[in-house]
């Protein structure tokens, strides 16, 4: 047995003692209860009549129901998810609770399926998705377990959700890259609109002029205005190139500022194109 294994075992024994010493939570749906229940699931010292908890003299804790525990953990995970998905998470929690009399948790699996479908429609952080996949797998495994047995891999998966929940947000660099992507989309769309609109607008100017000299003057005046937009397009390119160097080729913290500059430049270019189109030249 290596030193690492000894340390890990010692740590888990320490968790057992900690769980034994802690008071039983008053409210099953509180954060404290959720934390304690998952902690108890990691405790290797257990009594057979109440798996997951350690009973010592003076710490007579009622055995928490594992499915009730799963429900609490799901309810705790729900706020971590985007609002669109919270209802599904809570519904799954209710379905898990209905497993108490020994029903097959098909309803929970259905809720998980709904959750997955909903996740396709809204951006769910990858970390949370991965954790939800683990819960899904655990629920499927739980189907094979006899009623009221302890699906303690579920607790591990839920612990992962709890551990990753606070991190279940896009990292700053990833967020900057997404911001940069959005800025590029805005700029490209504005360029495309400009190309199309410019062709028709110049022809409209000629049609409205009726005489060659008037048309030439109108076109010259319009192109003067357009030149400013063309210059802005070149300025924007410099900003985008710099942002691409920082965001696509490196992981430097300065990249966050580059993404903001790219977004600002994109907004400015789009506004200039809109102003040109609105002004009509």
């Amino acid at each position: 047995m290596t030193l690492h294994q000894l340390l890990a075992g010692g740590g888990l024994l320490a968790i057992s003692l900690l769980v034994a010493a802690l008071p039983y939570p008053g409210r099953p749906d509180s954060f404290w209860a959720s934390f304690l229940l998952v902690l108890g699931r990691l405790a290797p010292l257990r009594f057979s009549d109440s798996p997951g908890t350690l009973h010592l003299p003076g710490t007579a804790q009622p055995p928490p129901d594992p499915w009730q525990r799963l429900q609490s953990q799901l309810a705790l995970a729900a706020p971590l998810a985007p609002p669109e998905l919270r209802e599904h998470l809570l519904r799954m929690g209710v379905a898990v609770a209905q497993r108490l009399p020994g029903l097959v948790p098909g309803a929970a699996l259905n809720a998980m399926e709904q959750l997955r479908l909903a996740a396709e429609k809204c951006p769910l952080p990858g970390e949370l998705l991965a954790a939800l996949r683990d819960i899904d797998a655990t629920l499927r495994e739980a189907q094979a377990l006899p009623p009221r047995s302890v699906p303690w891999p579920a607790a591990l998966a839920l612990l992962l959700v709890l551990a990753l929940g606070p991190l279940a947000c896009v990292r700053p660099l990833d967020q900057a890259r997404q911001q940069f992507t959005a800025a590029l989309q805005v700029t490209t769309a504005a360029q495309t609109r400009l190309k199309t609109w410019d062709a028709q607008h110049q022809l409209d100017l000629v049609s409205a002029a009726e005489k060659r000299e008037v048309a030439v003057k109108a076109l010259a005046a319009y192109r003067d205005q357009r030149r400013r937009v063309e210059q802005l397009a070149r300025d924007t390119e410099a900003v985008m190139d710099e942002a691409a160097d920082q965001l696509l080729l490196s992981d430097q913290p300065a990249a966050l500022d580059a993404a903001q500059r790219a977004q600002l430049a994109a907004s400015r270019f789009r506004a200039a194109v809109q102003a040109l189109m609105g002004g009509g030249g």
Partner: protein
Amino acid sequence: MGAAMAAIGGLAQLAAEYERADEQRRQEILDQADQHYRAYKESLGGLPAALQQNDRAADAAAAALGA
């Protein structure tokens, strides 16, 4: 102790899966940014030529008008 080792193993496996999923997501974000950057550069590169073509068409239409 066996259960404890299994717990650690299970957690490590979940953590590894999480790492893989996270890396894949980050790569997708990077690829998407790269793809849009290329599209942007291509569109920008075509902008002067497109505007010049528009100019030529408008000039020709103007030339066709009477004095």
